[in-house]
Each structure stands twice: as C-alpha cells, then as structure tokens.
C-alpha cells in the first residue's frame, strides 16, 4: 500500500460527513500517522453538496488533487458522480445508492445508471449498494456515515481497533453502541464481498 491514502468523502449537507473526517483523522492520530484534511462548513451545510478531504499519512496540503484519490466515499449517488473526478484510475469508489433529490424545480434526478457510468469512467473499482437501507435496519439512517467507513475499513492504512477507539473520541457515549455496530456491519459486508466464495467485486450498476 502506498504511504498516503487520499480520500474524498462526499454527500449532502446534514449526512454527517464531518464526523467521518473526524473519525478517520483521530484514527490516524491513534495509529501515529500524519494526517491532513479539509471540509465544508457554512452555507453549503444547508442541504448543499458537501465534500471532505482526508489524507491519511499525508504531509502536504489539506486538499486531494484531482485524479488522485485512492478512495471516494460517496453517501449519495449524484454526489458520487459529481466528485468522481477526484478518483485515480486504480482507485475505489464506495457508493451509497439511496438518492437525495435536490429541490431544483422541474429538472429531474438523473438515472442511477448514468451516475454510476460517470464513476466507472474513471477506471476505478466500485462497491455500490443501498447502504441507507442497511443503516435503517440496524436502527437509524444517521449511522450511514459510520457504516460506510466500516465498508472502507479494509482499505485504510490504520488498524480496525484504531477506528473503533477513534469512534469513542468523536461520538457521544450514548451513541457508541449503535455506531460500533454500524462500523462492524460495514466491515463484515466488505469482507463478505471480497472473500473467495463471496460475490467478488460485486457492483450493482
């Protein structure tokens, strides 16, 4: 694995993207890795497109350059397409397929296949599923963010225990249990997909 893992996390204001960035950043601190990142605050948080960048092991600036992200963690499919230009060709996109429609009058939400085609065009691999649905089953749509970190966890340069520990720093105690469940669920999901008997490289496009 190369030293720095560049990650772009994207979605819609209110989906808990800053928490993901805090979680990954704290995990780096726990693992003794350098880390830099940047996030969107302010106006865009009112339901606009939101992106956070995090460079695990990173020693330079806070932003991932275009076509350089190893991982795109997209909490919404339209945003996955929008931010796909950050992905490098051998990178990985983990895409939540549950759409959130922007309230722009008249224009219709694009077809899922169109959006995923844009992600694939980068040459990156993709894991795509309706993770919102799984999050709801575990107990709340609010844990979608942490669940998706669980899915990404095997590709991160920090151990799973660092993530679990970091979770305790960034989430209030009341919510530890459900978030740990979400993290673990995500990890199991990913391992299922990539196990030899599993649905290797499954994508739902």
């Amino acid at each position, binding site marked *: 694995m190369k030293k720095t893992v560049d990650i772009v996390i994207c979605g819609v204001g209110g989906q808990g993207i800053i928490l993901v960035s805090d979680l990954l950043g704290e995990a780096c601190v726990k693992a003794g890795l350098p880390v830099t990142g940047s996030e969107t605050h302010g106006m865009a948080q009112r339901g606009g497109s939101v992106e956070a960048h995090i460079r695990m092991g990173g020693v330079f600036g*806070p932003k991932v*350059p275009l076509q350089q992200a190893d991982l795109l963690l997209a909490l919404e499919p339209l945003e996955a397409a929008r931010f796909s230009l950050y992905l490098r060709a051998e990178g990985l996109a983990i895409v939540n397929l549950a759409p959130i429609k922007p*309230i722009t009058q008249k224009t219709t939400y*694009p077809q899922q296949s169109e959006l995923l085609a844009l992600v694939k065009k980068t040459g990156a691999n993709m894991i795509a599923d309706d993770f919102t649905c799984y999050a709801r089953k575990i107990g709340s749509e609010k844990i979608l963010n942490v669940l998706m970190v669980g899915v990404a966890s095997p590709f991160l340069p920090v151990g799973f225990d660092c993530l679990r520990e970091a979770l305790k720093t960034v989430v209030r105690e009341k919510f530890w249990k459900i978030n740990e469940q979400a993290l673990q669920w995500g990890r199991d999901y990913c391992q299922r997909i990539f196990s030899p008997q599993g649905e290797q490289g499954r994508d739902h496009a």
Partner: protein
Amino acid sequence: MVMKRAYLLGNHAVAYGLVEGGLQAAFAYPGTPSSEITEKLASLAEQYRFYVEWSINEKVALETAYGVALSGRRAAAIMKHVGLNVAADPLMTAAYTGVVGGLVIVVADDPGIHSSQNEQDSRQYALFAKLPCFEPASPQEALEMVKFSFAFSEKISQPVIIRLVTRLAHGKAAVTLGQRIELSQSTTGFKKEPSRWVMVPANARQAHRRLNETQKVVAEAMEELEFNYFQPGEEGLVIASGLTWFYVREVFAKQENNWSLVKIGTYPLPEKLLAKALKRAKKVLVVEEGEPVVEQWVERLLCKINPGATVHGKEDGCLPREGEVSVELVEKAVNQLAGKQMNPKPVPPSLLPRSPVLCPGCPHRASLHLLKKVFGRKAIFPGDIGCYTLGVNIGAIDTCLCMGAGLSTGAGLARLEPDRPVVAIIGDSTFFHAGIPALINATYNQAELVVAILDNRTTAMTGHQPHPGIGYTATGEKTTEIDLEKLCQACGAKQVIILDPYQVAESLSVLKQLKDQPGVRVIIFRRACILLEKTHHRFEITLDEDKCQGCQVCFYLGCPAIEWVNNRPVINNSCTGCGLCVAFCPHQALNKYEKNS
C-alpha cells in the same frame, strides 16, 4: 495543558494557540470561516480562566479587545475578512496609538468565496494600517504563530494581524498541543498617558511618526523569524506564502527538477532573505492566496536587485486572479514555466446542481412567502445576510450587499420609487450588528419603509451563536435580553408588530392592514430556527389526491420535504410538520393532523 496530539480543525488550532499564548480576553462576531475559533475558546474559558464573548459586531469587538490591551493584558479580536471592514475604523488608529498588552487580531479570508459576499485580502489591511501580519501554512504553524504573536505584539507595542484562509481555518491536521504560558501578574493596569491614548491632531501627528519609525524595527524582526525560510535549489525560484507553501511542496515532490523555494509567513516580507534568493534567480513564480501582494513586492525588490529576472504569477496570468490556489494550478504554472506539456485535467461533469436551501420547516420560508403574497410582484425586497438570503431562490430577496445594508438600501430605493412598496428583510443577529443605525436613520428621515426582522432567536447561518436578543452569553450564562420590540419603538418606528410566521391566516390579515399605512413599519417575525427545536413534527401532512389539481403552488414554496412525482406532491420524511404548505394550498388538498392523535 498536557502535551497531546489531536486531529484538529485549523480554527481549533488557532484557539489553542491563543490559549497557550496567554490569552486573557477574546471578543468576536461570528462569520464563516472564523466562528469555530471563538466556539472553541468558549469551551475552554472556564478551564483556563479567561474571558470570551460574542460581541455585537466586529467594530465593538476590536475596540473592546483594544481596551483590554491598554490595561496591559492579552486580548484577541476574531472575525471574518469582511468583519475587518466594519472594524477598519478602530484598526487604522489603533496602529497609531499602539498597545501595551498583546493584541492579536485574527481574520479569516475566504478565497474562492465559499460562504461570503466577496474575497477581499486582509493582508492589504495590514499594509494599509502598517501593522505586522502573520500567515500560517498549516494548523500546527497557526498554533505556533498565534502563540508567538502575543509576545511579539508586546515587544513592538503594536497589534498583530493573523491572516487565515478558508482551507486553513477549515483544514485539519494532527496537531501537537503545548503548555499555556504562565504570565506574571505584575501588570500595572491602565496608565493615563494622554499624549499616547488621546488622538487629537497634535498627538496623532506624533503617533504617526512613531508608527513609521516602528516599521524598520518590525521589518528587521521578521528576518529572524522561522516562519520564513529559503530552501536553495536550481535557478528557478518559487515564492509561496501561507498554505500555498504546501501546494508548492507537493508539486515539487513529484517533479524531477529541484527549484529554489522560499516560504513566506510574515508581512512585512523578509527582504534580506528574499534578496539572497532573488539574486541568482532567472524566473520567479509567486504563489499566494488573494491579491498579488507578495508578487508586487517581489517585483519592486527585483528592480533593485536583479532587474533581468522575470516574475510570474497573478499579474501575467500564470495563475488566476480570482478564486483559490490549488496543487493543480501550481503544477500547471510550474510546468508552463519549465516549458513542459501537461495532460489536461478532467472537466467536471455537468450535473444537476445541489445548492443550499432553507431547511424543511424553516420559519424564514414562511415569513418570506407571507411577505411576497401580501406585498406582491411590484414590491422590492432589499435583503441582508443570513440564512434568509437563500430566499433569493423563492424570489423574496432582491439585494444582498453587506450586513445591515438591506434597511438603508431599502430607504434609498423607497425615497425615489414611491409607488413601489419596499420591504427590507433582515435577520435578528444582523439587525443588532448593523441594522439599528439604519432603522433610526429611516425613522428620523421619514422613509416609507416596511422592515421585516426575521427573529429566529439565533445567528443561524454561522452555526447558531447567541446574540444580544437571546438572553445568554457565549459561555452560556444568563444575561440581559434586549427587547427587540421596545428597541424598535425607541428607534422611532410608529408601528412594531410581532407575528408568528407559522400562523399564516392571522399573519396575512395583519400584513394586509399594515401594507397601506405610511412611515416606517416594523414586523418582527418571531419563531425559533427549526434546528433549535428539539421536537418538531407537530403535524403529519397528508395529500387528498382528489382535491389536488397539480398546480404546484406547494412545490414552489421551495421546501426540501416536498417532491414532485407524477404531477403530485409527495411529502418525504424530512418534513417537520410546520404546516406552511397546508395553509398555502389553494385547493385545500393538503391536510395536517396532530401527530399521534
């Protein structure tokens, strides 16, 4: 403070820098991207025993901080870039008088205009006021610089400006925290010294001379600081200030050539250090966020030192004049100067945009639609800055200039356009910040104006900070709550009425009466920001398919909870049950039910 490493927001690193530097009192008005500094300070105030407040505006914040500094204590004033316009008056003359205790002015610029009305460059204020300015390259350096600047400010008896940019303020990094400096308790307090503190012309002339003399001392001091350095290499030279330093480093980490690099972290620039680098350079690329401040400075130096060298940057179009710098832009500029071809970068796909909108259930949506409905298409709605500026999407905000401008712009519009109703729209925090003088001016000069104060009990846009109308302070203590209604009456408004924007029918009838009356009329729409309400969903909204005519009136309210599917509204699960759509549906097709009943 224990030695600790944490993944910190740049703004939080700044807050720790202030605390470690011995901060005794901080004053701020919220503004993206600066607000988190003060919020962090508020959370640390008790532990480290310093004072922190949300001030009514930046001018008052800076003047109050200045007062603390005159008493020999360490103070900070914190604001966003345009806040410094408001505080420019005290800034310019505080430079003349200087200070006793350290005074640090933290200003967060917003290149790229992520969440502002312009992208002005605060370094130019530093030059204008002839004050030193530090510009950090990373959250860790921000902490160190801020910590250092208190002592520096005391050494030169001048306020110091810290310039941040959005990517630094909202950037993050693993940061090592240090110890809080223990200050000796020996300050003598404010000493009367009229020749120094009273800026009447005779004293001000002396003070200006003193200020000019300090310039040399400050410039000398900058040569010694590690915030600037020169990394010699080949004859190509890149000079980078602030966080663009890391963009440049990242680009050269990938290049075979090894140009000379200079990192700039202080203003005035370290001219001697620069001279060393410039002497042997043939091509100089200058990289910086904002205006070509360093670039023009370097051009001046080169005329003296090495007139044969060429300077590249924002002035020759090598880098764009507007917006943010990035690794990609630096790479392109370096390659261009090295005569190398580059693969074209991908163009963003043209996709359905997702712009910020008022939250579902936002009281502003209700207020704005009520005003539109009553005052009609002919009316002009001069607006202001806050969440409600998003009302531009529903045609209820016609102007937005700067805080407080809506009222005065409205008075101006109404003065010579008497046949059009003018309804100025302003938020509660904004009204306290800059609306009061404008309201008094309107009543005093007998303007024909309706003023709508959207009192959502908070400063919502910047993250829900309290303000003088709320009744508690930055650190959560109870305090005097300024009564908006009485305040407006005291400002001379003939009529001041309070409406709940959720009460649509009642509000409509009151507004209709008010419409044709003369003079300045103030409407206070009072209803807390929905994000402050712990339990919403007061009502369940359902659609009567038979009554619905597909007219889209509900859809055009612009609420994220209403989607349009197969020519019918669908209420999604972001609905808070405010009932606005029910009241506005012309065919009574939407109904609301008390939840759980």
